[in-house]
Structures are given as structure tokens and as C-alpha cells.
């Protein structure tokens, strides 16, 4: 249905912006994977690379902001074009936030490598990170393929991430009660788990943008909530 614009420069502008989103998405996916890997392998050098790499993600977001503002001013986009521009602005914001959370994970990893490891929590966090990473990949795929069904599937999967977070929350709480010497490390690990849970929320928001882009309407049901830790204790 979406043929080329009569003004081909408009198509080129939109393609360039979408290429930047995909580039940003690729960097963020790698940041999540690397953050989880550096945590599990206690690799301080890799953690430092992630912290430095966040600048490139931020720069891309800034570039996308400028390009979208330019398209709005010069092309006055409507209908699918308008929804595309609006979704790009939000998605780049979500990706930037996810990048920040990965950076924060790396920062905490830099501290954790100098502490005694707490049980096998790093591998649990790695599984959680893997889940978020796959969700992000699928969300970006659904964006490229304009696949609202895949996007809705991603939205549903945020529940799994929330459940992982809830069980880690309880686990860390137990470790801290067992031995107060674990508190510092567990606090950092808990923040890492929370970062991953928040990443899942941002991925969900990206998927919601895809549904809006494709259908013109926000997803029908409210996203599932499985983070019950605010009701615990």
C-alpha cells in the first residue's frame, strides 16, 4: 500500500531517519548483551567499553531529534508519515534510556568485580538480560516489518521479565537477611535487576509504538503487570 512519495527527497529523508533508528537499535542490543556478559565474566574492561559506548547512542538520539524536527518543519507529514515521525521520536527516546540502563549496569559491574560473588545471581541476571535483548530484537524487527502481531507478542512477554525481576528481588532480600556482608553487593545486583526490568518496559513502549504506527491506534489492552515487588513487604 505504501508506494513511493511523489517527492522522492521525502522518501530519502524518512529512510535516512529509519536507518539511524536501526543503527541505534543495534548499538543498544549490543550494550545489553555486553553488560550482561561483563557482569557474568567479571570483565571490568568490557564494562568500561560499554560506559564509553553510550556516547554514540546519545549522539544518534540527538541526530534523530534534529532530523525529525526538520522533516516536520519542511514536509508537514500526515497520516502514516506523521505516525512514523512520532513513533521514531518516541522509539529513539526509549532506546536512549535503555542505553543509559546498560551503562548503569556496567558502572555497577565495575564495582562488583572487586567484591565476593553472591551465589549464581549473575547468571540469573544474564538470562533476564537475554530475554530483554530478544524482546528488543523482536520489537525492532516488528518495526521494520510493520508487524503489529509480533509487537503485541513482545508486549505480552514483558510479564516474564517482570516475574524474573520479582523472584530476583526476593532472592536478594533473602541473601541480605542471611548475611549483612552481602548487602552492598546485593544492593548493586538489585539495581541491575531493576535496570533490566525498566529496559523491558521501554522495549514494551517501543512495541506499543509499532502497534500505533501500523494500526493508527494505541494497543487495546493495558500492558500486563507482573512486578509486584512494590506490594511485597
Amino acid at each position, binding site marked *: 500500500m505504501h508506494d513511493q512519495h*511523489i*517527492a522522492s527527497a521525502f522518501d530519502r529523508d524518512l529512510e535516512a531517519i529509519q536507518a539511524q533508528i536501526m543503527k541505534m537499535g543495534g548499538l543498544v542490543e549490543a550494550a545489553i548483551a555486553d553488560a550482561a556478559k561483563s557482569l557474568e565474566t567479571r570483565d571490568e574492561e568490557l564494562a568500561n567499553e560499554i560506559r564509553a559506548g553510550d556516547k554514540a547512542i546519545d549522539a544518534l538520539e540527538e541526530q534523530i531529534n534534529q532530523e525529525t524536527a526538520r522533516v516536520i518543519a519542511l514536509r508537514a507529514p500526515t*497520516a502514516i508519515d506523521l505516525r512514523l515521525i512520532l513513533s521514531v521520536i518516541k522509539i529513539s527516546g526509549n532506546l536512549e534510556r535503555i542505553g543509559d540502563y546498560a551503562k548503569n549496569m556496567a558502572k555497577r559491574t565495575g564495582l562488583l568485580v572487586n567484591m565476593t560473588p553472591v551465589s549464581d545471581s549473575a547468571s540469573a541476571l544474564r538470562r533476564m538480560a537475554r530475554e530483554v535483548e530478544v524482546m528488543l530484537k523482536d520489537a525492532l524487527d516488528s518495526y521494520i516489518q510493520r508487524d503489529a502481531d509480533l509487537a503485541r507478542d513482545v508486549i505480552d512477554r514483558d510479564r516474564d521479565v517482570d516475574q524474573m525481576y520479582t523472584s530476583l528481588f526476593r532472592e536478594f532480600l533473602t541473601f541480605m537477611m542471611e548475611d549483612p556482608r552481602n548487602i552492598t553487593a546485593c544492593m548493586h545486583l538489585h539495581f541491575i535487576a531493576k535496570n533490566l526490568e525498566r529496559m523491558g518496559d521501554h522495549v514494551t513502549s517501543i512495541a506499543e509504538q509499532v502497534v500505533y504506527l501500523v494500526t493508527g491506534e494505541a494497543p487495546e489492552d493495558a500492558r500486563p503487570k507482573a512486578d509486584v515487588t512494590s506490594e511485597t513487604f
Partner: protein
Amino acid sequence: MYDVTRDSDVDTKATKLSARNVQVYYGTTHAIKDVDVDIEDKTVTAFIGPSGCGKSTFLRCLNRMNDTIDVCRVEGTIQLDGEDIYDERVDPVQLRAKVGMVFQKPNPFPKSIYDNIAYGPRIHGLAKNKAELDEIVEKSLRRGAIWDEVKDRLDAPGTGLSGGQQQRLCIARAVATEPEVLLMDEPCSALDPIATAQVEELIDELRQNYSVVIVTHSMQQAARVSQKTAFFHLGNLVEFGETGQIFTNPEDPRTESYITGRIG
């Protein structure tokens, strides 16, 4: 007892013009195909679509301007306040006083500014004396948002005004006969952006009293001034809906292609 129907009365605008199964033929050419539409009172309705899609033809049906074209044949029903405007008892001249029209190119009469406005009220006998006529002229020029610019030179020729002023003069002339509906066929296409903005502002004010139907090639103009938008394509009314919805999430792929500037 609380009357539940009252609330909805406020929100629901009455239908001013109602078209059903309208077909227009120019000789053997089928120019308008089975158009159904309800034009609301006190609302600006925009007709958009590519050249030759029939939007101007359909607009001209609404005050029987097509009667003047010999080969043109109109079928179906068009009702103004529930009365068929093509009924043989309807006098087209009276109809056109109720359904006024403003054209693409400003076309003031080669007369004074005063007489441009006074002409319609005079032939329709709307004023009993000179004082009443003066009043109508002033009121109309005020409604046309041009009074302050011309009040000191009402005897000057209308053709001596700038393009934007001429167009507002023509709008003032159209409202002088107290119409109920105002049809505008590309009213800003010959105007610069400032004059366009003034006419658009005027259209928004006219909406308080009239039902306005505007044909425009500028989609941004349709988006700016109208509350309802109708998209015509190849003689069909493809989509008719709330302007905000048409421009963010149109239902028909042909509407989408047209408003986003794609080859449709």
C-alpha cells in the same frame, strides 16, 4: 425531570445540506458517482482530491450552479433543511441567495465597494430604505473583515483593491444576502500567505453563523480551517470524516496515498 436529550443537542450539529445518490453527467461523462453526504450546520467542511475528481462539480450542485451548463445533468436528491433544492418550485436565484458562493479568482463587480455589497440586498429587496441598506453594507463588510480597510472609501471601485481585499469583499458580498450556507471554490489560491491567513481567520469566524463548504487543493488549508473533510477521487466520495482523523489515520488507502503525497 431532567431531559437527557438536551445534552446531546449541544454536541450534535444539525444537518444543513443532505445529498443522497447524487449522480452528475456531463454529456456521457459520469462525473459524480453516487455521492451521499451530510453537511452540518455551523461547521466548515473541506472537499479535497486531485484535479478532475469532481469536488468542484459536486460543490456547484449544492446551489444549482450546474443548471447553467447545458450538457450537465444532475440526478439524486439534495436537500437544504429537508427541502429538495431541485424541486421545480424552487427558484434558483432565491436558492443562491441562501447558498452563497465565493470563487477562486476574486471577481468584484466593476462598481463601487458600496454597490458591490448593496447589489444582492437590492435585487432581493432586503432593505426598505437607504439607511437600512447602509446598515447591511456595513455589517457585511465587518463580517468580511474588511470594513476598517475600506470604510473611508466606499465609493472607490472594488476592482482597485488588492487581491486579498477583493476576495474578502467578495465574501462580504456573499454574506450580504444573509445566506445559510457559503460555498467556496479555492478561495485562497490567488492570494499571498498573509491574505490567505486573513481569509482563513474569516472562515473560522463565519462558522459561528453559517455552514461553510470549501474546496481546496491545499491539504494544509483543509487541515487548518475545516472540522469535517471529504476526499473525492474519480467522481467517488471515498472518505468523509472528522478532519483530525482523516489527517492522522485515514481509513481508505486512497485517502492515505493522496494526503501523504504518494502516487495513488
